[in-house]
């Protein structure tokens, strides 16, 4: 049960930070991923691509991480850790673009679809497609 994260910067007209998740995202590490993204946002990242190619498994805690990541990248730090976020009122066509996903494996994609979190994200086939499309 381990997760490795790799951060890469793509410079250009619209710089993108790529956060690659390798392993299993679950209750033991989802808070660390949130903290990583908080650090990236504070460091100036405004476009984040989550590369899920090597993410073999995502537990329901992973959904909490994704939701929080969208909030952070939207520039909405919670007043304190216990207060939490308000719900997202995502309507169709109102998909945020600050955080995008690429290359989810079938098991991860199933969890995203089942829980409706897929409606939050633009999902790309791979990194290059994602960067080109941004």
């Amino acid at each position: 049960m381990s997760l490795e994260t790799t951060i890469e910067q793509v410079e250009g007209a619209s710089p993108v930070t790529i956060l690659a998740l390798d392993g299993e995202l679950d209750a033991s590490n989802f808070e660390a991923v949130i903290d990583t993204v908080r650090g990236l946002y504070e460091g100036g990242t405004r476009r984040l691509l989550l590369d899920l190619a090597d993410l073999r498994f995502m537990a329901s805690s992973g959904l909490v991480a994704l939701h929080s990541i969208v909030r952070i990248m939207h520039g909405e730090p919670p007043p304190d850790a216990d207060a939490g976020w308000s719900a997202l009122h995502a309507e169709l066509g109102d998909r945020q673009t600050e955080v995008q996903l690429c290359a989810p494996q079938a098991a991860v994609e199933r969890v995203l679809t089942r829980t409706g979190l897929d409606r939050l994200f633009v999902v790309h086939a791979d990194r290059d497609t994602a960067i080109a499309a941004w």
Partner: protein
Amino acid sequence: MTAPAGAAEALAPDIDLEAVVAPFRGSLSVVIEDPDGRPIATTSGEAPPSATSVAIRSGPLAGGRVRVWDENPASRLGGAVAESLAVALGALPVTDPEAVRLAAATTRRIEAELAHGRRLQRSFVSLVPPDVPGFEIAAHYEAAREVGGDFFDLFRLRRRGRPLSIVIADVTGKGIAAALLMAFSRPLLHAAIDHTRGPAEALERTNRILVDERRSSLFITALAARLDVRNGSLSVANAGHEPPMIVPGDGSPVRFLLGGGPLIGAFGRLDLVEIGVDLAPGDLVLFYTDGVTDARSPHGERFDEWRLVQAVESVRGGTSAEVVDAIAGSVGAFQGCDEVADDITIVAIRRSVRQTIRRSGGR
């Protein structure tokens, strides 16, 4: 008695606590105390017994208190100031190694207490399902030591035909916040089901309450269903939960009842659609949480849906209790001797082959 010089710096080096209390000087008296009750910042000496006192619940000063008092006893400002100061000080980052250790110990203790409370609460949740003539109901619940927020609820509705209401849910995340959300949501869901026309509306209402009333970074996957016990008609609404499995009594392949909407707490609206299925005599419907499918072997494999199907097939035609036991046994063997990593909940409902209610014209 005042704490030794430098105590405040040692506990919270990132903030000048004297500067925190200074602005109140002249209007209110404020004292910040360390976890041992020693003042580490004060505007005007020791607090009288009448002072409003609020505990600092987290951060480097966890266990300490903020005491505020006012010369004017009619003023209610003191309480509000004490409350907001305590919350603000609770949000301070923990940096000192000793304070980190203490804060972690406090958190562990609170978590242990909550886990205990959770089990206690669970013991009140009747694991003995309600008696429903014409149906066999079996349930299995196994609590994880740390993580886990499963709950289920089976009860007869007080309306025509006394339908059976089924709720199975899982709070995401872990720790104190998850335990509290679970304690809060179970009665909320129960009440919503009692006061709405159907499962979809009940989940929608629960979502609205949680979203409006309670900011949270945690969610609940929840499934609510209603079974008409007179004819076996089952209606299911699914908010991001694992799909139920239908095990036909005639031996045809098992299938998952797919379809539903997002989990509770993340979006303003769920827009759920109810899925209907008719249970014929011998048909079984199986509800479960991700503690089953996400169970992990010592080699790192996951139990997954195909092993669940396999376990069910191994006792095809069996009673609800046999099916539940087969799954629980299979998950247990798969996980090895380790403690379960997540709560495991399994509920099976089978329409009896032979109807137990039989009315004859006379004796």
